[in-house]
């Protein structure tokens, strides 16, 4: 008997799952949204995504080589970061924008902390925050609706065309959330007018456009439907879990319903929360960024608290903050308190005896 038998601790069987299978499935789940982005904004979207991915992967490899640690670019995590960076810019951006965003995300957002598993912030969101802060005009302002189909939305705010000329221009060329923001902030629009615009925004037509993607916006946020298909796939594969996205979106729904109306508490129509959920980066953020394993709590209660915190901060920024959109900052902020949340939400072991 010269055979050598493997000896190891139990269990001796293992689910077929690995870090790279998780990451590549996330890539697959992001594909529908990318395809919709290409459909609405043209092939340029694909190129921008490729630049971001290549920049992210190259940065990861170079830094790992420099740090003399194993190069793990095949695990797909840098690819995910690259795609998410590209999803956060609009299709008319110059080629270097996603490249710089991706380099920043990987270098400062991830590798500086020690690489995958050790980063505090979601790297892609940190990259986005960096881009927004450095080139605000390129990233947030001047969203372009490049297809004729987007006119549906345009027509829904046509009522604003007759406004006095000193009303900020931003309204007529803005994203839906920008319009809402402007309506809340300006005093130069009559309340009748404001109500009409609000009604138009929450009309079934607008909501349908938001859902399918007939709106201006950044590459990855354009179609809620495509993102939800990807999210459903990840949920089916048990890669994301319901607690974070549902508590996040649920919190936004409730708070917007309570405080979102322009005529005081509970003045919003029930469609306004839906408008808020479908607009901006909420779907992308709630299903693909807040659920980032590394930067969200491990405990079940912790995930609920994390999602609610994201929801509260998002609503606060959207309704009273300086930006029309608050998803990325809310998640980044909650990323910081994850260790704290984990610390205070360790579950009670099965059969825990009550202290006497």
């Amino acid at each position: 008997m010269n055979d050598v038998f493997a000896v190891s601790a139990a269990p001796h069987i293992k689910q077929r799952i690995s870090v790279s299978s998780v990451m590549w499935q996330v890539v697959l789940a992001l594909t529908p949204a990318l395809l919709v982005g290409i459909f609405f904004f043209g092939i340029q979207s694909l190129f921008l995504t490729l630049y971001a991915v290549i920049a992210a992967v190259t940065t990861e490899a170079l830094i790992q080589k420099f740090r003399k640690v194993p190069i793990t670019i095949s695990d797909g995590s840098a690819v995910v970061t690259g795609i998410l960076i590209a999803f956060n810019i609009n299709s008319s951006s110059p080629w270097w924008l996603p490249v710089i965003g991706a380099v920043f995300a990987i270098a400062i957002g991830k590798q500086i902390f020690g690489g995958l598993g050790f980063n505090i912030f979601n790297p892609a969101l940190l990259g986005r925050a960096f881009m927004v802060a450095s080139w605000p005009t390129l990233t947030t302002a001047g969203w372009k609706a490049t297809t004729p189909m987007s006119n549906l939305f345009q027509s829904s705010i046509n009522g604003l065309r007759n406004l006095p000329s000193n009303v900020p221009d931003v309204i007529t060329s803005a994203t839906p959330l920008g319009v809402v923001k402007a309506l809340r902030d300006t005093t130069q629009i009559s309340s009748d007018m404001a109500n009409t615009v609000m009604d138009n925004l929450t009309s079934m037509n607008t909501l349908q456009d938001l859902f399918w993607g007939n709106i201006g916006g950044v590459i990855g946020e354009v179609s809620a439907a495509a993102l939800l298909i990807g999210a459903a796939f990840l949920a089916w594969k048990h890669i994301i879990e319901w607690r974070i996205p549902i508590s996040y979106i649920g919190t936004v729904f409730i708070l917007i319903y309570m405080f979102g109306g322009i005529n005081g508490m509970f003045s919003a129509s029930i469609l306004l929360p839906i408008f808020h959920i479908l607009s901006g980066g909420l779907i992308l953020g709630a299903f693909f960024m807040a659920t980032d394993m590394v930067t969200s709590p491990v405990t079940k209660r912790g995930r609920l608290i994390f999602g609610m915190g994201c929801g509260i901060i998002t609503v606060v920024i959207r309704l009273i903050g300086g930006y029309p959109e608050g998803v990325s900052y809310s998640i980044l902020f909650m990323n910081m308190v994850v260790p704290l949340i984990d610390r205070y939400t360790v579950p009670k072991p099965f059969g825990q005896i009550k202290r006497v």
Partner: protein
Amino acid sequence: MGLKTFPGGIHPHDNKSFSKDKKIETMPLPEKIVIPLSQHIGAPSKPIVKVGDEVLAGQRIAEAGGFVSIPMHSSISGKVTKLDKFRHPTGTLVQGIEITSDGEDKWIELIDDSNYMELISKDMKDRIADAGICGMGGAGFPTHVKLSPPKGKTIDTIILNGVECEPYLTADYRIMLEQAEDIISGLKILMKIVDAKNGVVGIEANKPDAIKLFKTMLKNDKNIKVVGLHLKYPQGAEKQLIYAATKRKVPNKGGLPMDVNVVVQNVGTAIAVYEAVRYKKPLIERVITVSGKIVKNPKNIKARIGTFYSDLLEFCGGTTEDIGKIISGGPMMGFAIPSLETPMTKGSSGLILFDKKEAHKEKEDVCLRCGRCVDVCPLNLVPSLIAHHVRNDDWDSAEKFGVMDCMKCGSCAYVCPSHIKLIQWIDIGKIKVNEKRTNNT
């Protein structure tokens, strides 16, 4: 059929089809056996024979080493040929008694006490203790100890564990189909011993014929329930089974089923109990599953305790490919052992053989903090956190976060995408915390 279950758990492929339809076969007498003196939880047994002694099948060859211990019996007739250290199914080396067969299988005299149900509780318990019975599901706790609750604790329910949630294993399934009557008699004895009003037989949903059979056989016994359980691992873990069947939660930090007025026994143990009380037959044989993709004829084998795994495998026609890993017990909680020259014990429920590919081990990656281990932990622990503290030699924190509560079911390691050896880390933590506790006292 309203199935019951517990929170958490996993769904591994059960791989029972290799052996589940194979009737129990009796193994021909082996030439040589080894009776290890530690087949149970508690003090090792003390040998009372010496090399050269002639023994009969069923003859006592070692005394219980204390109250929490059991006596050992020779499982064949022959001559004691060696007292030495032998390989144990948990992988370690322990003291054992080697007996070489005379080929005649001469037994001690058994009785047939058909009025066994008239015996008083203490006599029944004595027969069980004399027969050397310990739990046959794996842990091997002496049965008579489980049936002796301290003053003030009462038992109202006996649960028979017919769950067999470990993949591959089918031994309990086969005995439920082929020896249902003995199992029920055993259950009634157990209920009488502790004066329990209720009996429960818990069976997992992947054995519908066993559930049906027991329901039919027990339809006139109003106080015995058959409970169908969801197909989920570790449904057969004691605390999880008790919770599913009665909604009672056994306290953590060393709580026992008797704290919630329950005793759980394996179905195999129930048969041993019945045979001990009625026939005074010692526990010297049991049914074991030999299975795996590479086993030529996977079987459920009734074999004498002490039979070598190599003999069992030979009885199954050997393997079709090179063996990569030998697993004693089930693949989730069993032990990988370095040699087939290992005797089966009273707790041996299976011998599983993996080929080289199945034995392959992945490299440990960093923790992604995905929380899958938290989602599946049936004891509501945070396995990744415990492993993290053990890795950093922080035994106090490991203890605080429940390393001692872990039952090592392995669900967390099964789902970990980073292939972190959570159970190995937790095991180290348990050892270190125990060391610390011993040093403090």
